[in-house]
């Protein structure tokens, strides 16, 4: 379209050409204007008039004077026509003009010189092309590209689906979720129901990972200028599992409560008649209701003894049913088991010697600290020691306690009658009393060892027996030394379970002595250990609620806050930090001590104990 107007207008052929060109020019969607070298508008076509209604093809309009390119500017910043008039070449520019309807339109303007035979510029032809559409398209492409990039990189699952349900676009992670090969979803029908304004839950059968559950969310978008749907796919499989676990726990809790109610009722019902019998007989024996003869007193004494035995059986039964119902909660504390066993065994020494038996004890030199329920493990030791004494009439009882490879072992040996080989498997069973003739003293219940076995196994330990008839018996049990980390994991896990069941938040804060090693070098192991103890103390005293707990680790202390949102836990952290800083200033802590504190919460950060602990750097 360069030389639209020919200068030789007399030629008929040319006239015809001109006429054709004129029609074209008139009807084309490109705006064309003809300017003089003084930038007077000589001619404009229909499109130009449409876009710029105030342009008139008169010699009085000067482009840059009368036709303002924009409300603010006087001249176009870069005028291609001016450039053409200067160098006689074709120039292009993209200029924004306010056109009709107050719109600012972008135009691509191409200016070409019209030259005469002497190569002088006699006119300039300007061609205006509506660029706004193009610009919009370019921008759209840019957006589309960044959208695509965002989708590719995104960790969430997206699909773009057209109105017929055909997948237009997706990212690798989503392909994996649906068990498809790369590119395998594009072009296929999505196949899952797309309801609007609701989130749908779907089941995805993935050959590799098994069934996954996902929540779909729908958003209307435009894709390649066509209406489409952006489908957001959220994998809720783990959440569903967690909810399932929570429901099971709640059900378990309900069952436990029923069992507990039963145990409590039975307990009361059995004990009341026993109490009455005991007190009745006891009162008669004590002479409250008149004189009694010696034979009568003997009868009554036997009665009382057996009521006592009955009572012990009921106690043991309740113990066992509690354990089996999972209702026993161990009260785990860091205990010096050597000290504990020394204390317990000392009372048995006297009983043994009274019976004429030797009592040998072997304890290690140093104390052994282990996480156990003091009362329950005492119960086990008492059971083994009293059995040994009961079934041994001469010889000795030997108690041995030691540690080996992170496992604490204890054995009680006696020189009693021993147990026959076929009876050994029954030793720890309930109510099995076989062949062993009991000596004088409290009669057994047949449940003691069964209970001991349960208690030891609740501690994740083992119990066993070595025995030969006539050669005596050796009972032993082993308890693993759980590390502080194991204990913390157990407690956090328990707290998290409770939170899941109740549907409430749960947060933990870890206060770690960052330069523990440095402090050990500077102050020695013991002083550094006591720093940790002091930190534990401070945090304990600052606890506000009954269920908040503090646990000491190897170089950190964990605060457990049930029913606490992460934001509130942060406030607790701040409060404690201020306290700790004061303590450092006050000389309670070495000024070199560096403490870092981190918070993690359920559900904000994780829904497993590993997740929470990792989030606080443990």
């Amino acid at each position: 379209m360069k030389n639209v107007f020919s200068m030789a207008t007399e030629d008929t052929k040319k006239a015809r050409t001109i006429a054709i060109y004129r029609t074209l020019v008139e009807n084309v969607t490109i705006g064309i204007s003809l300017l003089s070298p003084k930038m007077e508008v000589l001619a404009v076509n229909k499109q130009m008039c449409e876009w710029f209604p105030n342009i008139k093809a008169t010699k009085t309009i000067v482009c840059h004077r009368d036709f303002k390119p924009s409300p603010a500017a006087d001249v176009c910043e870069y005028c291609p026509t001016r450039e053409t008039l200067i160098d006689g070449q074709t120039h292009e520019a993209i200029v924004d003009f306010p056109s009709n309807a107050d719109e600012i339109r972008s135009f691509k303007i191409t200016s070409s010189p019209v030259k005469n035979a002497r190569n002088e510029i006699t006119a300039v032809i300007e061609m205006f092309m509506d660029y706004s559409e193009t610009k919009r398209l370019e921008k759209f492409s840019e957006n589309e590209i960044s959208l695509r990039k965002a989708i590719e990189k995104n960790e969430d699952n997206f699909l773009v689906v057209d109105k017929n349900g055909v997948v237009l676009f997706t990212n690798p992670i989503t392909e994996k979720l649906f068990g498809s090969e790369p590119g395998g979803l594009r072009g296929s029908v999505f196949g899952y129901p797309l309801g609007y304004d609701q989130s749908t839950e779907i089941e995805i059968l993935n050959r590799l990972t098994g069934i996954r559950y996902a929540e779909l969310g729908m958003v209307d978008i435009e894709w390649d200028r066509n209406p489409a749907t952006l489908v957001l796919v959220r994998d809720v499989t783990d959440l569903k599992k967690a909810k399932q676990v929570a429901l099971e726990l709640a059900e378990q809790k309900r069952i436990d409560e029923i069992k507990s109610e039963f145990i409590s009722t039975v307990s009361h019902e059995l004990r009341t008649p026993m109490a009455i019998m005991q007190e009745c007989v006891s009162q008669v024996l004590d002479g409250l209701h008149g004189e009694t003869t010696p034979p009568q007193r003997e009868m009554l004494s036997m009665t009382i003894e057996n009521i006592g035995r009955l009572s012990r059986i009921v106690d043991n039964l309740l113990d066992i049913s509690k354990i089996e119902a999972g209702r026993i909660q161990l009260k785990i504390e860091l205990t010096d088991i050597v000290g504990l066993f020394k204390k317990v065994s000392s009372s048995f020494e006297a009983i043994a010697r009274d019976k004429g038996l030797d009592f040998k004890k072997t304890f290690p030199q140093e104390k052994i600290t282990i996480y156990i329920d003091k009362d329950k493990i005492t119960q086990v030791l008492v059971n083994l020691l009293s059995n040994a004494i009961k079934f041994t009439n001469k010889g000795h009882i030997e108690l041995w306690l030691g540690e080996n490879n992170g496992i604490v072992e204890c054995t009680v040996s006696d020189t009693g009658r021993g147990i026959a080989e076929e009876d050994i498997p029954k030793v720890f069973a309930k109510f099995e009393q076989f062949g062993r003739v009991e000596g004088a003293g409290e009669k057994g219940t047949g449940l003691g060892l069964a209970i001991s076995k349960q208690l030891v196994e609740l501690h994740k330990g083992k119990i066993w027996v070595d025995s030969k008839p006539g050669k005596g018996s050796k009972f032993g049990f082993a308890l693993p030394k759980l590390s502080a980390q194991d204990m913390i994991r157990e407690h956090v896990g328990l707290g998290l379970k409770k939170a899941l069941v109740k549907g409430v938040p749960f947060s933990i804060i870890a206060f770690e002595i960052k330069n523990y090693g440095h402090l050990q070098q500077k102050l020695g192991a013991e002083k550094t250990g006591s720093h940790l103890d002091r930190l534990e103390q401070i945090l304990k005293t600052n606890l506000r609620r009954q269920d908040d707990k503090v646990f000491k680790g190897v170089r950190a202390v964990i605060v457990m806050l049930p029913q606490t949102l992460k934001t509130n836990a942060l406030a607790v952290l701040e409060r404690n930090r201020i306290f700790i800083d004061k303590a450092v200033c006050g000389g309670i802590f070495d000024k070199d001590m560096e403490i870092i504190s981190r918070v993690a919460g359920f559900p904000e950060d994780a829904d497993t104990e590993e997740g929470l602990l990792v989030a606080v750097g443990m």
Partner: protein
Amino acid sequence: MAKKILIVDDDQEIVMLIAARLRANQYEIVVANDAVQAISKAHKEKPDLILLDNRMSAGSGLSVLANLRQAMDTILTPIIFITAYPSEKIKEEALEKGATDFIGKPFDANDLLGKIRKAFGERGL
């Protein structure tokens, strides 16, 4: 002057036995059979010590305990809590609510008398 002991238990036989035992030891006895009676008699008779059973019809011993500890004239009265199976949980709860001591069922008479004497001794009476 004889010390007055209030026995709270809905079981008539137990009440009769404990009463016999305590009378033989020179204590004066008052009886309540349920939670409501327990509270009203505690205020009316002003006993020097209360033996409170945990399980009764119409209200648990724990709630009676809590109630008595909130009233001015019973806030200091020694209360021995009788419970069939003194588990850790019950003990903790009772202590929290203000029980002075515990005794299980069946109980040893001497044990009970000892605890009663101790409760009086603690108060310096």
